[in-house]
């Protein structure tokens, strides 16, 4: 049984349909990447899985149970956490408070404040600062740490590399490896294709709200993806 499966997942923003019948599966312990151009529906798909968009119950199945109708805070309770695009830290909370907020649902598990600080030592040094005082890379770490604090079985990461310098992105992806080594399942949305493919074992390429291509990452001709993606 897959940890996550979507069945003909469709999603709308008002009158506008953003996803058309997405079928994807994610196995426990896997890291799966979703890539595609702007507006292809990647973020929408993550938001639907996180409960931020209303869908039919059966469209999303988690651990064998239909959960498509649940609210976002319920999703956290069953074990789905999200690192939203653009980090979305709470500006009036300190770094530590942001992390503690991630633990609001009280889901038990290995991740505690100490372990998150162990993963991102820089956050420990800055724990009393308000979140906006952090650099982009530190904010991203804080956002990942905040999601981890809910001890998720499935971690959804939206554009971790957005607006960050390459060496910082490298750091964050190194940490992500440490997280997946714990057995946490990860779904990555990235526009930095190589980064996404390096970190994942399988990928889905989205186009106009549909899955255009899916394959294991290993041995896949990257130039082909790049060509398809950019039309170069």
């Amino acid at each position, binding site marked *: 049984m897959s940890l996550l499966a979507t069945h003909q997942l469709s999603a709308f923003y008002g009158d506008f349909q953003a996803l058309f019948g997405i079928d994807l599966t994610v196995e426990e312990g896997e890291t799966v990447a979703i890539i595609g151009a702007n507006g292809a529906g990647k973020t929408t798909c993550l938001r639907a899985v996180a409960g931020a968009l209303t869908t039919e119950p059966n469209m999303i199945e988690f651990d064998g149970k239909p959960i498509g109708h649940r609210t976002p805070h319920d999703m956290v309770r069953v074990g789905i956490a999200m690192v939203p695009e653009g980090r979305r830290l709470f500006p009036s909370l300190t770094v530590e408070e942001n992390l503690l907020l991630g633990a609001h649902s009280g889901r038990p598990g290995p991740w505690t404040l100490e372990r998150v600080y162990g993963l991102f030592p820089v956050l420990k040094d800055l724990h009393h600062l308000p979140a906006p005082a952090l650099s982009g890379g530190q904010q991203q770490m804080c956002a990942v740490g905040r999601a981890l604090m809910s001890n998720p079985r499935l971690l959804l990461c939206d554009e971790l590399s957005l607006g960050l310098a390459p060496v910082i992105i490298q750091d964050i992806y190194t940490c992500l490896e440490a997280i997946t080594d714990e057995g946490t399942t990860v779904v990555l949305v990235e*526009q930095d*294709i*190589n980064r996404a493919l390096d970190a994942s074992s399988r990928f889905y390429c989205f186009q106009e709200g549909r899955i255009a291509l899916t394959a294991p990452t290993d041995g896949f001709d990257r130039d082909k993806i790049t060509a398809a993606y950019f039309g170069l």
Partner: protein
Amino acid sequence: MPTLLQLDQVSKSYGALQAADQLVLSVEEGEALAVIGPNGAGKSTMFNLITGDVRASSGTVRFKGDDITALPAHARARLGMGRSYQIPHPFANMTVYENLLVGAIFGGHQTERESYESCAEVLKITGLVDKANVPARTLTLLQRKRLELARALATRPNLLLLDEIAGGLTEHECAELVKTIKAIHAQGTTIIWIEHIVHALLSVASRLVVMNFGRMIAEGDPHAVMNDAQVREVYMGIPAS
């Protein structure tokens, strides 16, 4: 050719975030300029600084030789700037034709009667004739993007700023759009186009600017710029080897 638009050391910061950092850019009349860069690189911010949606923290913006840094967006539109938004902002409760009419009357200095023909022409160019009398809220994303273009054209701009209007198009639709933009350009409209679909850009643009972290990191002949190692790394994540 005379310079149409000039940015001189234009910067914009939001607190600690430097959204535009010392931008210097000069666009000649009749040029077609392409802008690429990762998400969050500051491309749309540059557009907003040009059109006046956002005021510069420092630096000057010149249009047709005049300093327009202090002018509000509507005054700049009346001087001959038309823009599309990356996320379409249709006037949802007005018909497509009425959407155009706003541009024709206020940005294009036409009376309502004078504008009939030109609005009809724009509808034809942008393939929205069949949708002329439906409320804009019923349009699909694709049609909304076309409406963005159509509305900007209705102001009869000298400078047309296009922000990702080809995103999500099929190969064929993209080719159609390129044809349209080429035709607009051929009529003498200066164009600045932000897009991720590089091949579409390159078939129209004669110059390419690459942005990252609010700065311009490369500029020049499109093919030369695309082969630049730094650009490949920043834009596509292909490590310089």
